[in-house]
C-alpha cells in the first residue's frame, strides 16, 4: 500500500499518527454515521439517537483529552501537504475548547431528552445536524488557514440553519431560520470576497504569512484602504458567528424562534468557537508584525476596531435587553453583551506574546467555561419553566420561588453569575478579564484603549444588573398565585449542578490557583510564529528548530 501510493507520486497522505491527531473529529463523524445507520437496523427511536449522541460527545471528549500528552508544549501543525503550516493546528487550546464544546453538547443533549424526546419524531436528523455543527465548530477552533476557516464556518453554519428551522410547523421558527440563513449567507459571501482580496495581495492563505505581509504594508502605508476593507470583511464573517454588534441582527430573532435546546447550543458553542478563532487570527497578525520586524503597534487600528466593537456590543446588548419580555430574547441580548466582554480580549491579543503570557488566555478560557456553565443553568431553568407554563415571558417566572424553589435558587445563582456578582463564577471570570486588560495597560500606547475597555466593562456590569434582576424580582417578589408545578427531577438536578459548579469555581478561584492557572495557560497555545518555520522537505526530523529542547513543534510534512 505504502509503495503503491508512493508510485502514484502522491505528495502527502496521512499516517496513522497524524490521523490520531484528528481522532476527535473522526469520532464525531463516526457518531453521525452510527446515528444514521442505527434506525435502519433497530428502527427509529429519538431517545436512542440522543443516547448515541451523548456517548459520541463523551468519546470525542476522551479522545481529545488523550491527545494532551502528545502536545506537551506548544502544539502540532498537521494534516497538510506543506510542512511549513498545516491546514489544522493541534494545541492544548484547541483540545480544551473541544472539551468545553463537547461537555456542552452532552448537556444540551440531556436537555433535549428532558424536553423533546417524547414528542419529536425526527430525533436522528436533529442529532446528525447537531453533531455536524459541533464538527464545524471544533474545526473552527483549530485552524489558521483562510480556506479552512471559511469551510469550517460554513460547516458550523449550515447545520445550525437547519436545526433552527427544525420545528417545521412553527411559523416563528421558519422565519428565524430564514433570517439566519439570509444573514449568514450574506456575511459568508462577503467574508469570502475579503479572503479573495487578501489572497490576491499576498498569494497565500496562511494567516501567519498574511500577518507578516499586512504588517509590512501597514508600516509602509501602502494598500491601507484595501487592507482595512478586506480585514473588515473577514473579521465580519467571524463576528457574525460571535453575534457581535453590528453583525448581531440575526441573534435575538433566531434565539426566540428556535427551540430552546437549539438556542442553548447556539448561545455558547458557536460563540466559543468563533471567539477562539478570532483570537487566534488576531494573535497571528500580531506575531506576523514581530516576524516582519515591524513595530508591534502596527495593528493598533485593528486593536482599536475590535475594542470599540466589543464595547458597542456590550452596551447595546445590555440596553436592548431592558425592553425584552421574552426570556429567550433577553438571554439573546445578554449573550451579545457577554460576547462583547470576551471580545475585549481580542484587543489584548493583537499584542504579540500576549497569548503565551498566561493572563489573557487564562481569562478567556475561564470566561468561556463560566459562561457555558451559567448559560446552561439559566437555559435549563427557562426551558423547564416554558415547558410547564407554555409561556416564554418573564411573567411566567412569577412566584417561582414558591412554586418550584429548587428551580428558583439555581436560577438566581446563574443570573447573579451572569451579572458578575461574587461569590459566583461569573465574578471571577470578569475579575480575571479586567486583570488581563489591566496587565497590558501600562506597556504600550494602547493603554488608553485598555483603560477605556476596563471602565466600560465595569459600567456595563452595573447596567446589566437591573435586567437580570427583573427575572429574580418576578420569581420572588411578585406572585400571581399560579399553581405549583413539579419540575422534572433530572432537569432540576442539572440546574442545581450548574449552580453548585458556579459557586465552587467562584470560591475556589477567588484566592486559589491563579498563578497555577496562569502558568498552565501560558503554554496552551502554539505561538503562531512557529507555524512559519520552513521545514526542509527532505528533512525527516520534523522538529522545527527551537532554542529550548522541550519546546518542539512537530509538523506533519516530515512524518512520512
Amino acid at each position, binding site marked *: 500500500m505504502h509503495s503503491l501510493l508512493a508510485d502514484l507520486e502522491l505528495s502527502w497522505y496521512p499516517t496513522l499518527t497524524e490521523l490520531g491527531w484528528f481522532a476527535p473529529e473522526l469520532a464525531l463523524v463516526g457518531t453521525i454515521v452510527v446515528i444514521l445507520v442505527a434506525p435502519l437496523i433497530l428502527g427509529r427511536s429519538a431517545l436512542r439517537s440522543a443516547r448515541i449522541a451523548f456517548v459520541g460527545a463523551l468519546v470525542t471528549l476522551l479522545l481529545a483529552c488523550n491527545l494532551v500528552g502528545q502536545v506537551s508544549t506548544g502544539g502540532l501543525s498537521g494534516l497538510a501537504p506543506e510542512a511549513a503550516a498545516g491546514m489544522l493546528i493541534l494545541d492544548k487550546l484547541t483540545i480544551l475548547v473541544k472539551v468545553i464544546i463537547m461537555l456542552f453538547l452532552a448537556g444540551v443533549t440531556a436537555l433535549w431528552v428532558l424536553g423533546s424526546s417524547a414528542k419529536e419524531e425526527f430525533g436522528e436528523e436533529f442529532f446528525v445536524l447537531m453533531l455536524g455543527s459541533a464538527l464545524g465548530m471544533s474545526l473552527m477552533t483549530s485552524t489558521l488557514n483562510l*480556506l479552512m476557516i*471559511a*469551510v469550517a464556518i*460554513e460547516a458550523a453554519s*449550515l447545520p445550525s*440553519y*437547519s436545526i433552527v*428551522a427544525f420545528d*417545521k*410547523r*412553527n*411559523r*416563528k421558527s*421558519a*422565519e*428565524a*431560520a*430564514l*433570517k439566519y*440563513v*439570509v444573514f449568514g*449567507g*450574506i456575511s*459568508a*459571501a*462577503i467574508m*469570502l*470576497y475579503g*479572503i*479573495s*482580496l487578501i*489572497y*490576491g495581495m499576498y*498569494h*497565500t*492563505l496562511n494567516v501567519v504569512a498574511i500577518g507578516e505581509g499586512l504588517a509590512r504594508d501597514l508600516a509602509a502605508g501602502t494598500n491601507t484602504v484595501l487592507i482595512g476593507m478586506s480585514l473588515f470583511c473577514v473579521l465580519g464573517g467571524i463576528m457574525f458567528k460571535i453575534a457581535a454588534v453590528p453583525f448581531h*441582527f440575526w441573534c*435575538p*430573532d433566531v434565539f*426566540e*424562534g428556535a427551540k430552546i435546546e437549539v438556542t442553548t447550543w447556539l448561545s455558547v458553542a458557536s460563540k466559543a468557537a468563533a471567539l477562539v478563532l478570532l483570537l487566534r487570527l488576531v494573535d497571528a497578525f500580531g506575531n506576523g508584525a514581530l516576524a516582519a520586524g515591524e513595530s508591534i503597534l502596527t495593528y493598533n487600528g485593528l486593536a482599536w476596531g475590535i475594542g470599540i466593537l466589543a464595547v458597542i456590543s456590550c452596551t447595546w446588548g445590555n440596553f436592548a435587553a431592558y425592553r425584552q419580555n421574552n426570556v429567550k430574547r433577553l438571554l439573546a441580548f445578554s449573550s451579545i453583551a457577554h460576547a462583547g466582554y470576551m471580545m475585549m480580549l481580542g484587543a489584548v491579543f493583537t499584542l504579540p506574546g500576549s497569548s503565551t503570557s498566561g493572563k489573557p488566555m487564562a481569562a478567556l478560557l475561564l470566561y468561556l467555561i463560566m459562561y457555558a456553565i451559567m448559560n446552561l443553568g439559566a437555559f435549563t431553568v427557562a426551558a423547564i419553566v416554558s415547558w410547564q407554563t407554555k409561556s416564554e415571558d418573564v411573567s411566567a417566572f412569577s412566584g417561582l420561588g414558591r412554586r418550584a424553589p429548587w428551580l428558583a435558587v439555581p436560577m438566581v445563582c446563574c443570573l447573579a453569575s451572569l451579572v458578575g456578582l461574587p461569590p459566583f463564577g461569573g465574578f471571577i471570570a470578569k475579575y480575571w478579564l479586567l486583570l488581563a486588560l489591566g496587565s497590558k495597560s501600562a506597556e504600550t500606547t494602547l493603554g488608553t484603549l485598555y483603560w477605556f475597555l476596563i471602565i466600560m466593562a465595569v459600567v456595563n456590569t452595573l447596567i446589566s444588573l437591573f435586567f437580570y434582576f427583573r427575572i429574580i424580582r418576578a420569581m420572588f417578589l411578585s406572585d400571581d398565585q399560579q399553581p405549583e408545578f413539579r419540575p422534572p427531577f433530572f432537569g432540576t438536578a442539572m440546574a442545581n449542578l450548574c449552580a453548585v459548579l458556579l459557586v465552587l469555581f467562584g470560591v475556589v478561584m477567588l484566592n486559589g490557583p491563579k498563578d497555577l492557572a496562569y502558568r498552565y495557560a501560558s503554554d496552551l497555545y502554539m505561538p503562531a510564529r512557529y507555524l512559519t518555520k520552513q521545514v526542509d522537505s527532505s528533512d525527516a526530523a520534523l522538529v522545527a528548530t527551537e532554542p529550548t529542547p522541550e519546546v518542539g513543534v512537530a509538523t506533519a510534512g516530515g512524518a512520512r
Partner: protein
Amino acid sequence: MLTIGLMHYLILSAAIFCCGVFVMMTKRNAIGILIGVELVLNSVNINFIAFDRYSLVPGFDGQITALFVIVLAAAEAAVAVAICMNLYKNINTIDVDRGDALHG
C-alpha cells in the same frame, strides 16, 4: 490590440460584487437575496482564479479555493431553498418583509 490582463478580471469581479450587494440590499424576495449571494460568490471565484493565473508565484491555492467556494455555494443554496420552502408552507410568501412574527 487590447490584451486582457489581471485588471480586467478584477474590474469584472468588482462589478459583479457590486451587483450582488445591490441585489442583496434591494430585493425583498428571499430567493432574490440568495441570487445576490451567488453573484458575490461568483465574483469571489473570478478573483481567486485571476489572482492565481496572473500571479508571479506558482501555486494552485486559489483555484482549489474556488472549487471549495463552488461546493459551499451549492450546499448553502440547498439549505436556503429548503428553508424558503418551509417558510412558504407556513406563511404563503417568501417576502422577507412579511416575516414579522419576530420583531427584530
